[in-house]
């Protein structure tokens, strides 16, 4: 089977797959294919150097995870930092992802929502903002969102909850029990990878009581809730909070500790 045939088979099967092609520089036309089949990563093809293949496969995997398509620059032996690229010919690699972008659903049309939607867009999410209040949930307030839904959480999860998977995120920023209890309950019934719920520790404790009242009390289920939401970066503004939330989502996905690299040891990219 040629690389093209392999690529085509993955696309037809709706397997997440990314194609990396050298479009300029030494080795133009060479290709690397990264597919994710049942949680395993399958790499085929070569860009002509073992280290270049390794580095590009790693980056391609990251782009595929985020559903992104774009250009990256390397040295012929996989050099990727600006210092390493001085005095070497540049290999320009076009990485094209064939997977739907991950979704982020944000409940609550508040100031934090606009900032979170912006940061999520930078990370390649398809962003849906959802609030039952018509005056707040408008595309004028959230032009960066892909979609603004005026609806309650329950019908939203009933109709589309099955589309949420491990790459996706639900962020509940409402602070309002009559909205966030059904949102949490709906999110827990899906396979979504990240569920963050805004509010102080006190608010979260009260929320747990209300969830228990509606029958959501298993410790295993509740342990999926990231609340209070976000990494402890000490920020306060909506934008800083958005970064703290998105940083937590990335760290949860990769399973890394989210400490400063200076404080940790071992391989940075693994």
């Amino acid at each position, binding site marked *: 089977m*040629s*690389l*093209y045939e392999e690529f*085509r088979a993955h*696309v*037809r099967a709706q397997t997440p797959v990314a194609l990396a*092609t050298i*479009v*300029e520089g030494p080795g*133009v*036309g060479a*290709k690397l294919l990264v597919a994710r089949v049942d949680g395993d990563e399958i790499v085929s093809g070569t860009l002509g150097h073992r280290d270049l293949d390794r580095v590009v496969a790693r980056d391609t995997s990251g782009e595929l995870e985020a559903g992104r*398509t*774009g*250009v990256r620059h390397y040295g012929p032996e996989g050099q990727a930092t600006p210092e390493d690229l001085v005095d070497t010919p540049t290999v320009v690699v*076009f990485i*094209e992802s*064939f997977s739907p972008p991950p979704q982020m659903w944000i409940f609550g049309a508040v100031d934090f929502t606009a900032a979170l939607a912006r940061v999520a867009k930078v990370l390649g999410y398809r962003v849906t903002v959802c609030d039952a209040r018509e005056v707040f949930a408008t595309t004028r307030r959230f032009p960066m969102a892909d979609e603004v839904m005026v609806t309650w959480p329950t019908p939203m999860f009933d109709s589309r909850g099955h589309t949420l998977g491990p790459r996706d995120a639900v962020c509940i920023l409402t602070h309002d029990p009559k909205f966030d209890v059904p949102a949490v309950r709906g999110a827990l019934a899906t396979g979504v990878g990240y569920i963050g719920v805004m509010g102080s520790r006190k608010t979260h404790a009260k929320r747990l009581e209300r969830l228990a009242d509606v029958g959501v009390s298993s410790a295993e289920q509740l342990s999926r809730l990231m609340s209070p939401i976000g990494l402890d970066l000490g920020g306060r503004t909506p934008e800083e909070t958005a970064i703290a939330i998105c940083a937590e989502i990335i760290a949860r996905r990769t399973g890394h500790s989210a400490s400063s690299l200076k404080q940790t040891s071992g391989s940075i990219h693994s």
Partner: protein
Amino acid sequence: MREILDDIDRWRSAGKKVAVARVINIEGSGPRDPGAAMAVNEDGEVTGSVSGGCVEGAVVSEALDLINDGGPGRMVSFGYSDDEAFAVGLTCGGVIRLYLERLDW
């Protein structure tokens, strides 16, 4: 590229040579995102698109040249503000960079 695979398959099974152009990046405004693709066969038949129709004609002649000369893949640019640009431009004023290659992989 997903949406042009059926046509490409049909051409390939008929033994036609095929070239594919993909949008690599866009400066300024452009109608299609990176990854947008079109394919051309040796008879000049076309599937898909890389712009709003502004540069497709020029891409076809580039693609036919490439099919005939059998050379390696290459970058081609269209737009107003680029030195290597062709006379053909995007009506929106942006610059579009394409990677054009023979589908022989």
